[in-house]
């Protein structure tokens, strides 16, 4: 299985590349990047070839691609890759508009290639344990979920509306929205949101608060804010409080940390020791691509999660809850 990384605009590309390099049955064959300096340096780091031209990359002898470009470029790259017959792992959010996401899913289907959306949180061991507990019926039926995906303001193209398609709400809604769908096995029916810019002098939203309803009547809230100050001991969090008919589950997915106090650092730091999750994600992608089988996370999953962010923006614009399909 020969794999190409398409752009390192998103820093997750490095970690996916490392996971590919580690895989016994896969080879990191090529890196393409619109930024030749960045791509060249990465190719050197991973000991593979750099190719500055996208079409030539896709014409090369590769079986699959991992797309970690800026959000708005996902569609063009993914449609080209699908037409070239490559299996695709695409960074979240899958796209920035419903039409783009639909075009990507359709292109993959038409070309008969597998499309997987990168939701690595599904592979974090604490998250897997929650999924297992829910499947075992530990807390009965899910009634309500309180979620957070806090972060620091990532800067760069993330804060450029033309490249990212939005701010914190676009960047940080999809992980937890995906986990909620995965845990419940149900679709969102409505979204209400407050969206604001309160933390940084940037042109996109940096905070918000979403309230969602799901089929069957469960409700959820999600705080996707880039609200962690530089002085905070870690990058952010993914947390969920899940209330069920028979009990509750508290998830703090990235809390397996040591506290470090070092005189040379200006601030205290939490040093993670939790298990890597990107490897599980990449391994499943490689397995699905090798077998030409439906991956555990599909393009449809990516689309549904992104739709929640789009509904949140619409709700903030109209001041009313947005009903799906209405």
């Amino acid at each position, binding site marked *: 299985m020969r794999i190409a990384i398409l752009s390192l605009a998103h820093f997750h590309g490095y970690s996916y590349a490392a996971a590919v390099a580690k895989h016994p049955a896969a080879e990191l064959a090529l890196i393409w990047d619109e930024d030749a300096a960045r791509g060249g340096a990465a190719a050197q780091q991973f000991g593979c070839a750099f190719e500055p031209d996208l079409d030539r990359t896709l014409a090369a002898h590769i079986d699959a691609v991992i797309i970690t470009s800026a959000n708005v470029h996902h569609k063009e790259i993914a449609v080209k890759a699908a037409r070239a017959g490559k299996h695709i792992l695409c960074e979240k959010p899958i796209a920035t508009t419903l039409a783009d996401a639909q075009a990507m899913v359709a292109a993959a289907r038409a070309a008969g290639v597998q499309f997987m959306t990168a939701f690595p949180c599904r592979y974090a061991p604490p998250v897997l344990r929650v999924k297992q507990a829910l499947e075992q019926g530990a807390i009965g039926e899910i009634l309500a979920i309180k979620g957070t995906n806090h972060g620091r303001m990532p800067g760069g193209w993330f804060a450029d509306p033309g490249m990212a398609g939005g701010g914190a709400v676009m960047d940080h809604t999809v992980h937890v929205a995906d986990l909620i769908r995965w845990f419940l096995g149900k679709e969102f029916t409505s979204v209400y949101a407050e969206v604001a810019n*309160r933390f940084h002098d940037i042109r996109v939203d940096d905070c918000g608060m979403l309230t969602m309803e799901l089929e069957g009547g469960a409700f959820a809230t999600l*705080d996707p804010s880039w609200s962690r100050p530089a002085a905070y001991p870690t990058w952010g969090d993914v947390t969920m409080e899940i209330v069920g008919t028979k009990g509750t589950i508290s998830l703090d997915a990235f809390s397996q940390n040591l506290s470090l106090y070092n005189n040379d650092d200006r601030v205290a730091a939490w040093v993670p020791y939790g298990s890597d999750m990107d490897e599980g994600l990449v391994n499943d992608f490689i397995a699905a691509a090798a077998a030409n089988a439906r991956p555990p996370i599909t393009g449809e999953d990516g689309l549904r999660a992104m739709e929640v962010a789009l509904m949140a923006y619409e709700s903030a614009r109209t001041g009313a809850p947005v009903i799906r399909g209405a």
Partner: protein
Amino acid sequence: MRVGIVGAGTMGTVHTGSHHEAGHQVAAIYDLRPEAAAANAARVGAAVAPTFEALLSDPTIDLIDICLPTPLHRAFVEKAARAGKHVLCEKPLAPTLEDARAMIDICREAGVQFYVAHVLRFFPEYERARNLVLAGKVGEPGVIRTTRGGIFPTGWDDWYADYSRSGTLTLDMIIHDFDWLRWTFGEVERVYAKSLSTRTTERLDYALVTLRFASGAIAHVEGTWSHSGFRYGFEVAGSKGLIDFDSAKIQPVVVQKRAAEAGVTGVAVPESPLRESPYTTEIRHFGRCIEHGEIPIVTAYDAYKAVEISLAALESARTGRPVTLAKEAF
């Protein structure tokens, strides 16, 4: 300061001790259940009043403290005010804004002082956090999160489980957070909420409420009667910094008893002792307001505004629509 207390349930018991600690003399206690009144009276050397009227007709009593289930607040406050007594009433002030307004009006007309026990303003962690915010330590506040709750409460006649009386946790409990938030971050403009109380008849309640402030800041308030134990906390994130507090993580003392019998694990009981309970600080303050004209830290009007936020959240949960609060004060 001589006090007559009505109610000898959970809060009546707490207030009895706090008046005593604050140096107020508890003259008499009245409760529907005379044995409960007697037990509390015995702790502080008070009399048991046979009727509410007996409390009101005692000319030596300055203050009537009402620790009754919420729907009874209005009738008891009105009678106490008409009898010329200063009044202290547990939160929530009342189950409706009409009741709340009427209670404030009658106390004003009767020329008596009226206080509502929004005790969170006297919890040092909440007061300290507010001071840090006012001192600009987080910069411009952006997103505030609060949480409160635990086990489903039990009271006299199981009145908490009867939402027509308790008004759900959104009126009964997270009103504490609504008051602290309004005190710290200013007026609330808009409310959106979801609540289990609108969908299940089980002994479970859980509410997630979003507030949008006139300042533009956003708050998320979690209230639960679906967990165990009791836990509360908050996080204030701003443009320059962040404050967080989680009662479950602050355990300066943990007493753990080894189980005597095999197979039974010992229970660890965490404590976070202060020199004075916030309830006592609160009651001492109200006493000084009445006796020495100290400026009240929380007014009956504040209590009215907190009820307004709770009721807006319940309306939003019922209708599925955001509720915009009235701008005008009274």
